[in-house]
């Protein structure tokens, strides 16, 4: 199981780096949960389900300030022109892209996968799962969490990938 965790950690870090770099020219660094929480930022979260070939849930939590900075760059708009709906949409699209890249990176190439439409999280992020990874981008925190409905089954599906 440790092998699976290491594999997922490596892949999520790679695809997060690629997604943020490509969409927003933003680099990331890994950090600890404590380092992320010490930055004391207002966070926003979004959830997405992967329904096939395994039931997984992904959650992206991002500093609201980081999202505004990314939106300013992407939309070439000033802060006061950015509506909340646009920020919500940006967060959802970040996770949508991230989840797709992640699934492409971990499952065998001949296997199809299905993503749900991302939904903004209304609850506070208080989870401390084993599959939760923390990062800093532009001095602002973000985290990605993966929840597997059946971790043994996921381990079995991916064993050929991380043993390759």
């Amino acid at each position, binding site marked *: 199981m440790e092998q699976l965790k290491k594999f997922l950690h490596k892949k999520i870090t790679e695809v997060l780096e690629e*997604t943020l770099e490509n969409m927003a020219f933003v680099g990331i660094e890994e950090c600890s949960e404590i380092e992320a929480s010490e930055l004391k930022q207002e966070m926003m979260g979004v959830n997405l389900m992967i329904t096939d070939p395994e039931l997984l849930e992904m959650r992206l939590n991002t500093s609201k300030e980081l999202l505004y900075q990314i939106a300013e760059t992407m939309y070439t708009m000033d802060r006061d022109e950015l509506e909340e709906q646009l920020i919500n*949409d940006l967060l959802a699209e970040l996770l949508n892209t991230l989840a797709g890249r992640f699934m*492409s990176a971990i499952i065998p190439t001949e*296997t199809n996968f299905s993503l749900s439409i991302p939904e903004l999280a209304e609850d506070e992020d208080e989870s401390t799962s084993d599959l939760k990874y923390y990062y800093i981008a532009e001095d602002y925190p973000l985290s990605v969490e993966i929840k597997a409905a059946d971790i043994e089954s996921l381990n079995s599906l991916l064993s050929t990938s991380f043993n390759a």
Partner: protein
Amino acid sequence: MKRIVIADDSGTARMMIRRCLEIIGLAETEFVEAENGKEGLTMVKQAPTDLLISDLNMPIMDGETLLKWVKASPKLGDLPVLIITSAGNPAKSKQLLEMGAYSVINKPINPAMLSEVLAPLLNSEEG
């Protein structure tokens, strides 16, 4: 290209696609945006369209259904449909290409990717 319809439920994704197309020299094109496949189908029926770009995962009508409708239509069957998705993999791409998609590319996109994939369409227009 004179008119491109972009169907994606994410405004951010539509904006990124539009920006990339502008960067590769299509700034003079009319971009028409749709939030789902049903709207996209309505938009391509409204006026002659040179390219339909569609996401797969959308509410109301998904991109795969939109592709089926377009390819089944005698009037729209020749319209190139470029799928840009986060849920793509080789198996899915093969299936979509067999259904008549022009090409399938994965998010996140960049101008170079679009330029490469659209080159045959743009070159045939120039010729």
